[in-house]
């Protein structure tokens, strides 16, 4: 069993014993050093003072527009906190604070509970105090114990614009949220964290690093100057982010959407940068700053227009007639039609036992592909689509970025959907759908759903003949996205058709033309039928003058005809941008 003999030399014992004694001597010396040699110094610290450490919040980085104009800034407010180990008679303290500031004691109590970390650290009772409130507190100082004040930077917004869906908001971390935030556990209760929009996407750049202030505190809890040997650690402010937004264009479009629901996005297709981003209705960007009243919150939540929904990234809609360029490219590339081939539009189209209507009840007469896009004839597409396979159309749609996330620098984005055979079989059953579904798809109706942001990417592709860049809100260098492999002649034709849509006297996009010399505009209207009432009005367009190009994508929910409602907004935007009164706006 225990057979191995214990043959160990005595020198090993002496080696180990010597080591043990050596370690104990080192420890003893260290205690001697602290307790005897440095005794006076530590005595002084212990008897007269205790040390208090509080964190100094770091100002978040600013958010700037492309000209350097500040969109989101910080302003100083004050917070009042209590230190659990030092506070005597909490209730009495709360009453004094309440009397000086007008804040209800119940709120103070609730905050103490929410932000409590441990009894040595300041726990926030109230924030956003004004200088007035602070000075009244200061007067009542004698009645308070263990109460401290500190500065706290809050967000303040540019008054010209709202852009709340882009900028996003901050949220305060309380004990409930901490549980969900395990991944970034270096946050503490009471810290602000970007909770949506750019504030969330760029949280790590914006937040900066907190500092620490050490104070000596006397036996009555009064601060008695800095601590020797423990210099304060200054906070490291967050980095500013330079967006591609343009405050003046954003303001113009927000104004247009004051009484409308929908989205409008202006971008530079040569960079992918977004100049304006409107999702209406929205909310005031400072809604979440400071203490949001439960009344305000309920109003926003209960609003049936859903102002908290970011429609640009998270709303999905049928594209309607703006989809016709995808079908047009498929027809031309696969040589399913010639440019001369035409259809006679009577205003409706019989297909087996169903009647499909053109938007123009009187009919367009004899019409080829060019005029079918310019005048947005539906019947042409009902006829032409019958030679197209649904899977080929799905591939083409994805080539033009329908149903794919754009990977814009915002936290959430919907994918939309592009139906293919497998999808249709799953939805309707193997024999539950027929070619009739293709007729709907040909004019961007039916099962297809896209986000307005996908339509921005689509418009940028059309504007640049495929040579465009990923959409983004913060200035960055990106690789060009994969251009659809399409013959140059097809690009020429599609662009010609889009430009005729604007310039031809009966083109559906004619109301978007500001008629500025030298300005080339191409576009397409859409009027998407939907089960929620009036059709959604779409308009996409690009404009180019003196080598400066921008695109605009407009959607007005239940707005009616794209040509009549959405196109005029684009006209005013083009006027603002390319018109004579404005100064040079695009900088490379």
């Amino acid at each position: 069993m225990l057979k191995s003999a214990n043959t160990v030399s005595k020198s090993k014992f002496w080696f180990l014993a010597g080591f043990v004694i050596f370690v104990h001597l080192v420890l003893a010396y260290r205690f001697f050093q602290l307790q005897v040699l440095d005794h006076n110094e530590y005595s002084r610290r212990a008897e007269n003072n205790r040390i208090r450490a509080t964190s100094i919040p770091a100002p978040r980085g600013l958010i700037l527009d492309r000209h350097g104009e500040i969109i989101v800034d910080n302003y100083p407010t004050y917070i009042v906190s209590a230190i659990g180990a030092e506070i005597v008679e909490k209730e009495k303290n709360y009453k004094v604070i309440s009397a000086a500031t007008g804040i209800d004691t119940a709120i103070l109590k609730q905050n103490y509970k929410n932000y409590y970390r441990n009894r040595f650290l300041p726990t926030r009772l109230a924030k956003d105090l004004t200088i007035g409130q602070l000075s009244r507190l200061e007067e009542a100082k004698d009645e308070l114990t263990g109460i401290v004040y500190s500065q706290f930077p809050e967000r303040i917004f540019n008054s010209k614009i709202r852009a709340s869906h882009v900028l996003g908001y901050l949220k305060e971390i309380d004990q409930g949220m901490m549980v969900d935030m395990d991944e970034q556990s270096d946050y503490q209760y009471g810290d602000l964290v970007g909770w949506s929009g750019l504030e969330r996407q760029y949280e790590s750049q914006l937040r900066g690093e907190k500092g620490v202030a050490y104070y000596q505190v006397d036996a009555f809890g009064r601060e008695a100057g800095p601590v020797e040997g423990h210099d304060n650690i200054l906070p490291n402010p967050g980095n500013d982010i330079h967006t591609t937004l343009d405050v003046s264009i954003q303001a113009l479009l927000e104004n247009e959407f004051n009484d409308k629901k929908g989205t409008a996005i202006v971008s530079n297709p040569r960079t992918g940068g977004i100049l304006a981003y409107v999702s209406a209705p929205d909310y005031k960007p400072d809604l979440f700053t400071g203490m949001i009243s439960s009344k305000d919150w309920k109003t926003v939540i209960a609003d049936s227009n859903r102002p908290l929904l970011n429609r640009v990234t998270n709303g999905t809609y049928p594209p309607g007639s703006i989809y016709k360029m995808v079908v047009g490219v498929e027809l031309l590339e696969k040589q399913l039609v010639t440019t001369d081939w035409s259809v006679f539009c009577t205003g409706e189209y019989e297909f087996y036992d169903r009647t499909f209507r053109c938007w123009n009840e009187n009919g367009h007469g004899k019409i080829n592909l060019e005029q079918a896009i310019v005048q947005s004839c539906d019947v042409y597409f009902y006829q032409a689509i019958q030679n197209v396979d649904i899977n080929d159309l799905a591939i083409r749609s994805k080539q033009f970025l329908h149903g794919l996330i754009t990977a814009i620098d915002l936290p959430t984005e919907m994918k939309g959907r592009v139906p293919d055979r497998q999808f249709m079989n799953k939805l309707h059953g193997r024999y539950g759908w027929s070619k009739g579904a293709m007729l709907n798809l040909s004019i961007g109706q039916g099962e297809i759903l896209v986000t307005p942001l996908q339509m921005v990417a689509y418009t940028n592709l059309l504007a640049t003949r495929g040579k465009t860049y990923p959409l983004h809100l913060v200035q960055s260098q990106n690789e060009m996205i994969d251009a659809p492999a399409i013959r140059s002649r097809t690009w020429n034709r599609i662009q010609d058709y889009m430009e005729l849509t604007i310039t031809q006297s009966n083109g559906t996009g004619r109301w978007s033309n500001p008629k500025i010399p030298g300005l080339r505009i191409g576009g397409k209207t859409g009027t998407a039928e939907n089960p929620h009432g009036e059709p959604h009005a779409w308009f996409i367009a690009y404009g180019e003058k003196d080598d400066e190009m921008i695109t605009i994508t407009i959607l007005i929910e239940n707005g009616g005809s794209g040509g009549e409602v959405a196109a005029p907004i684009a006209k005013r935007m083009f006027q603002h941008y390319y018109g004579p009164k404005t100064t040079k706006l695009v900088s490379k």
Partner: protein
Amino acid sequence: MFAEFWYKIKNSPLSLLLVVGLLLLIGLVTLYSIAQVQAQTPPNAFSKQMIFLIPATILMIFMTLVSKGLVHKYIYLGYGFIVLAVFIPFFGEKVAGTYRWINLGLPFGLQPSEIAKWVIVITLARYLSDHNLQMNNFASNLVPFAIAILPTFIVLNQPDLGTAFVMMTPVIPMLFWVGARPYHLFLIVAPLFSILAASNEFTFTIWAAILAIVIYMAKPQLWHGVGIYFGNIFLGLIFPLMWNTLRPFQQKRVLTLINPDLDPLGAGYQIIQSKTALGSGGLFGKGWGQGTQTHLKFLPVQESDFIVSVIGEEFGFVMLFIMLVLFSWLIVKIIKLGLNASDRFSGLILIGISTIFMAHIFVNCAMTAGMIPVKGLPLPFVSYGGSFLLSSFMMIGLVLNFGREELD
């Protein structure tokens, strides 16, 4: 049967118990002071510690009486169980941010990692005594490391860096005891140093020189020596690159695990308070129940990890010195018993257990005195803590059992 038990107890090295008793007394007096002055009504740390002494003593007697043969026979099985047990807390709830505890529905939790410490020691002792190992052969050193590393790795993920450290330390003196070449032990810890030294060009240059000298002096085969040398250098060079692929918050987490001082509101604050408490105690202390730092509650976890600061503040350097004398006597005595043990298995267990005590004492005192980063390790017999008290008493039982002079 009782006669046999009595015989066993009578022949155990009972003088150890006197030292253990004195250390316990220091701890209890301090815990009583904390409970009394802060007006904590029972159950407080003092009363709970008193209650834990009952099962602790019973387990100690059991460990003193259990047959050595049975321990030897079943230890591999026990090792298997303990590896599973340190895994179990991962399926339970997090307590205080870690997965150390098993909840049995009792009013207190159990930490299987405490038991794992000495189970690893006995497992290593059996492996090293069973196999007549050629300790000059480098490969023979690796299996013992594997035995210790498996549970250590699990504990490290709980995360409990202190306990993981304690689990690994016995391997080196135990290998040394059975005749491993110091050169081999050096090779095993070398990669760790290569990584640590890589943070700074100057230290890395010095380390590279030391490595070269040690390898040269050991006179290995040329290719072995060159391979080991450049392997280590390569590791040191590649590590910063791997490090940079981590995201900033991941880096910060790893760094805070190694050095909690990076969180100045947390651990850094504890060290300031602990040093102030110790230093203000002076030579003779402020007197029992008079510690201002203690009783103004500025010292965190004062009942367990930072109890040395309370002792130092209230009883001064003199008492800490007495405590260190008692500890060093205890450990040297256990090593002495190891030297005189009748067989290698017993000797190795004693060496391993002495190392565990030594590691606890060093880490706890050095941390309290601000010499090393904060690691939550309690002080044997002195600190409050149920699982650790049970484990420490069981280890003393093992020492009494395996350190007994066999007269037959």
